[in-house]
């Protein structure tokens, strides 16, 4: 159990997927303008990433490896993820309309979120076993949601302050992200 806690802390704080590993930066800057969208996106990513991490691990271990076609990993994973996202969208729409209302618009965006694909690949590259892979996927997604919500909290305040014109929009967003990343690098050496 201790190993899992270490893995969680490492994935959420020390090697935060957004700020230290640089995966999933497009939605990070795109949907972090308000708290509501940030929480919605964060929850959608936690849900899809955990599922995708699990399924891609199974596909890799039980389909690609036995057939000896590991080099097709990229194509196989992206197809699995794209299908999964579509499937989740349909299931959520049918079974939980309120959830769909909240997460609906974020789901299609997740297909091209590199965090999902990146975690699937990290799971394989690091040689995680099945349980560890699920844990790692979940923890990474939580790290993603945490950073996204923190960022949104800061960006909401930008409305109240005067920003030099050249820095408006994405530029100040990037510098804010840099400062958050600097704060997170304080966790280095924790694990």
């Amino acid at each position, binding site marked *: 159990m201790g190993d899992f806690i270490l893995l969680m802390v490492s994935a959420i704080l020390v090697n935060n997927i957004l*700020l*230290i*590993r*640089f*995966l*999933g*930066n*497009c939605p990070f*800057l795109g949907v972090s303008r308000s708290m509501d969208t940030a929480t919605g996106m964060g929850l959608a990513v936690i849900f899809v990433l955990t599922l995708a991490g699990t399924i891609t691990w199974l596909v890799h271990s039980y389909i690609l490896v036995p057939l000896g076609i590991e*080099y*097709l*990993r*990229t*194509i196989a994973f*992206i*197809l699995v993820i*794209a299908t999964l996202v579509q499937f989740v969208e349909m299931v959520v729409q049918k079974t939980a309309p309120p959830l769909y209302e909240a997460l609906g618009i974020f789901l299609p965006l997740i*297909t*091209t*979120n*590199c965090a999902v*694909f*990146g975690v699937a*690949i*990290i799971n394989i*590259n690091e040689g995680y076993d099945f349980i560890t892979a699920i844990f790692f996927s979940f923890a990474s997604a939580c790290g993603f949601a945490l950073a996204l919500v923190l960022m949104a909290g800061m960006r909401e305040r930008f409305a109240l302050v005067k920003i*030099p*014109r*050249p*820095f*408006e929009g*994405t*530029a*100040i*967003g*990037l*510098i804010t*992200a*840099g*400062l958050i*990343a*600097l704060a997170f*690098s304080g966790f280095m050496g924790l694990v």
Partner: protein
Amino acid sequence: MSIKDEFTKGFWKTIPPFRLVLGLCPVLAVTTTGINGMGMGLATTFVLVFSNLFVSLLRKFIPREVRIASFIVIIASFVVIVELVMQAYFYQLFKILGIFIPLIVVNCIILGRAEAFASKNGPIMSLADGLGIGLGFTISLFVLGSIRELLGSGTLLDFNVMWSGFEPFAFMLKPPGAFVALGILLALMNLITQIQERRGGAS
């Protein structure tokens, strides 16, 4: 627009990742040196050019409903080619870029160009568009990588160029430095555009 316009717009007017704020992950992650940035840029350019060409050639045969999935399969095929070629001939670079080579498949620039341009235009135009945007992306990565390399380790293309007492600014090589460097570069570009606009407005 002429072929020349389609080709050159990628260098300034819509240069990624500054004007087209897409595909930021590799931009931030691999630009610790100029060479790494250029390697990543060229790999992306290769995929972009061929995916644009094939999407454009097949645009009449791909049904609208499944176009995104079809584009992704086309892109993924070229990413696999790049992955295998780099593993065989540029192993050093392949090791450094690591996970970001397979991640080209989810680089939004490529899918974005396939959807916004190649699926509506002919093969030659799409080729020009892909090459222009790809080279623009390569230039951005190279410039950002060179700045971070120069400040972070005092070298440029692995040559020592700073004076002897220069204290390397290690922050630039760390993840936070990537965000800040890109943010400042983007602000500089906005500033230049704003000055140009003001001049244009005055005359």
